[in-house]
């Protein structure tokens, strides 16, 4: 499943989707950026409630396929600008992290 397809099937909206055709290869969920930095794998979809400017930086470093911001958290303008500049897929869902993860699991299975 691609990031663009996921966006259509989950209740999620794209804030920034420069690469809709990238394949989602698994999921990583986490909010402590330092923790995510050393553990998320390239190609995974990263589920988080963090929305600050370092999120796109960590996404670029780890090479995740997209960031799915959960709980409908508001993304600040600086973070969105950084995502656009770095070419990061940034999606938002109103689902809590667990429910978002379950939904993604069902879609990927």
């Amino acid at each position, binding site marked *: 499943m691609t990031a663009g397809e996921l966006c259509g099937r989950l209740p999620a909206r794209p804030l920034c989707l420069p690469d809709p055709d990238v394949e989602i290869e698994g999921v990583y969920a986490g909010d*402590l*950026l*330092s*923790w995510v*930095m*050393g553990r998320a794998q390239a190609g995974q979809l990263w589920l988080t409630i*963090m929305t*600050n400017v*370092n999120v796109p*930086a960590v996404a*670029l*470093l780890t090479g995740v396929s997209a960031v799915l911001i959960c709980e409908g958290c508001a993304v600040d303008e600086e973070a969105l600008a950084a995502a656009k500049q*770095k070419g990061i897929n940034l999606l938002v869902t109103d689902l809590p992290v667990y429910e978002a993860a379950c939904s993604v699991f069902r879609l990927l299975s």
Partner: protein
Amino acid sequence: MKTFGYDLHLHSCLSPCADNDMTVHNIAGMAYLNGLSLIALTDHNSTANCRAFLHACACRGISGIPGMELTTAEEIHVVALFRSLAAAEACGNDLRAYRTLIENRADIFGEQLILDDEDRVVGQERHLLSNATTLSYEEAFAFCRSYDAVVYPAHVDRQSNGVIGILGSIPPFPDFSCLECRDDAVALQVSEETGHALLRLINSDAHVLWDISDDSITMTVPSADPKEPADRCFFETVGKL
């Protein structure tokens, strides 16, 4: 009593997220133009630019404090201010054992420039400085205090990397004599709730030159000797709280 302008939370070009124009002489020069008497350098998890910073402050005739902004394991930012360069450098060196060494990607996070006394780049910190150390919030206080530092939570009223944003409230321990908030009303509330006698600080957390505070923000501390340097006044005051 003595009243003066201050800014005790500043990042130099050593911090990856700070502008490369944040050289120690530019910082001291801007602080001087803004009428500040006391400034502190608080780069992320490193004190490598403190020596040059103190030199630059001396050139401008303003008081400089060597400091550091430590990232705890929970990603809470804690500011440590040291009474001497030797203590700052020892703490910065010893912190290496608690850092998570991830190679810095300057294209993503920014450069981490180490300067000499004349603003010349003499090196780069190889590993990313801003990420979490393995020290918990409580351990971070104890660690920095073992170097006789004044330690307090940074930008308490900010959601990202502030103690309340991450832990939900301020734990009763460790206590602290200073508190850093952007909004003094929040600082006052925290001060009353925790019961600590706090010196409430409004610092800029500047990463670019134009964010450095001006002398509209001041602290008033007791001082018998009008010639006593501002850094000594500060440490004497917070030591008594």
